[in-house]
């Protein structure tokens, strides 16, 4: 039996897809109804999930990869004394072991790792559509007491960048909010989405956190990825590697992004962005 788990819809879909590629004897644990598994146990939250998952003593748990899911999955692995891997891209059973593919070293390399059973894995978000089943749903109320008191919850915006055909992405090298505004206009003219590195989203706050591309943000695959002032840290590259054409603009021709670009424009990102925007607007006028 494989237990599929996630506290959110997207994570459950991604986890179901990987679980279905391993086997068909699936039981789901989630907070909302989904038909990617034939049997589903509905639970309330993190604490109930830990209890429900570990009491089933499964040989394999396939979990979503959200920050909450990671916490639940890791706690379950500790209780089951199970092997663990997160960021799983693909998995298959090999006898009494599970072989997974996952990024390592900040997303710089792909590792094949063999895990002893029982195993708990968290999958990297994918845009797959798993098979669906007629589903039997059990709503459960497990008596649990959390050691953590939640005082406040604030929902933030979420943007799905995976469907974007063009992405204009900015890094520190765009210089500031003025540059981000230019990039935003560029994205608009090109009919694309605006995104950024961890530095400009999480750290500097030039863009909201749901615009982050990379190992701790989203994985995207547009036709064109225009990277403005992004140095190309492995953590960022992991999120944009599946782009069809990569155009990078950077002052430094030896920046790591040069290795990951089809076209490297050696220029100041801000200057280039404003010139490109002007040229595009001129073209539209004609």
């Amino acid at each position: 039996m494989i237990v599929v788990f996630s506290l959110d819809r997207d994570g459950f879909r991604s986890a179901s897809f990987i679980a279905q590629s391993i086997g068909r004897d699936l039981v789901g644990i989630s907070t909302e109804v989904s038909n990617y598994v034939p049997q589903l146990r509905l639970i309330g939250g993190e604490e109930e999930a830990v209890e429900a998952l570990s009491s089933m003593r499964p040989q394999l748990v396939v979990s979503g990869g959200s920050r909450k899911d990671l916490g639940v999955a890791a706690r379950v692995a500790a209780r089951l004394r199970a092997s663990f891997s997160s960021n799983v891209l693909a998995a298959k059973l090999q006898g009494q072991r599970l072989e997974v593919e996952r990024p390592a070293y900040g997303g710089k390399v792909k590792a094949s790792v063999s895990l002893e059973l029982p195993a708990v894995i968290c999958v990297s978000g994918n845009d797959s559509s798993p098979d669906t089943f007629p589903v039997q749903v059990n709503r459960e109320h497990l008596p649990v007491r959390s050691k953590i008191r939640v005082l406040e919850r604030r929902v933030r915006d979420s943007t799905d960048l995976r469907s974007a055909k063009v992405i204009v992405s900015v890094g520190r090298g765009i210089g500031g909010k003025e540059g981000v505004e230019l990039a935003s206009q560029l994205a608009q003219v090109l009919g694309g989405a605006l995104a950024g590195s961890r530095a400009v989203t999480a750290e500097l706050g030039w863009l909201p956190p749901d615009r982050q591309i990379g190992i701790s943000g989203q994985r995207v695959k547009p036709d064109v990825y225009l990277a403005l002032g992004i140095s190309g840290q492995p953590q960022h590259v992991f999120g944009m590697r599946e782009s069809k054409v990569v155009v990078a603009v950077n002052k430094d021709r030896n920046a790591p992004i040069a290795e990951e670009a089809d076209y490297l424009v050696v220029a100041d990102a801000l200057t280039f962005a404003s010139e490109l925007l002007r040229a595009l607007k001129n073209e539209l006028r004609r």
Partner: protein
Amino acid sequence: MRVVAAFKVVADESMIKVVGGTVNLAVPKKLSDYDRNAIEQALRVREENGGSVIGITVGETDRRVIREALAMGLDEVIAVEAQGVDALATAEVLAEEIKGSDLIIMGESSTDAGNSAVPSMVGEILGLPSLTFVRSIRVSQGKVLAERDLGNELEVVEADLPAVISVTGEINSPRLPKIKQVIESSKKPVKVKRVEVKSRIEVKSLQSFQTKRKRVVLEGDVRDQVREVLQLLRGSL
């Protein structure tokens, strides 16, 4: 108050080169990125609440990296040398070593494996609350108040000490040690231990993610560059 900052010695991923399909891991070691934030936060908790900050590392015990951590201001370091530790084995060793601490602070993920699992595992093994992906904390009167950054949600939570927390890279800006601290760090105590662990995982192979890029470099006048980019945008859209 006894605060523990856990940190990991990792291969510097920015130095890793993939040549002819072979991944060369014989590169300089470094302090895993977000562990620097963990150490910084532990020092701030000590500054506000008094007590001590003990650093602990499990796995590789690179002397230079340990000194760097000490130079930031740790009082001492416990260095547990172990080969082939996976997430759970690391958590088991950590849990054993840090029993009796009031607050255990770790980074949100390591730059090598990046499982983001060890803090939750340590909490579970010790029966303590684990607050993960924390972007701000306040410690007072035996409690920790924390703001968790869960991506599309922020959660303000509270737990009694002792507790385990993992911090995000945004929680603070880690301090740079002064020369004096670097010199003094050589006199601080480092307890070295060696343990044998059973790893539940085995790394079969490391490969580069294959992406074939054209790597055309466009230099020169910005207007010429714009013209060329416009042309290739037309071809790709």
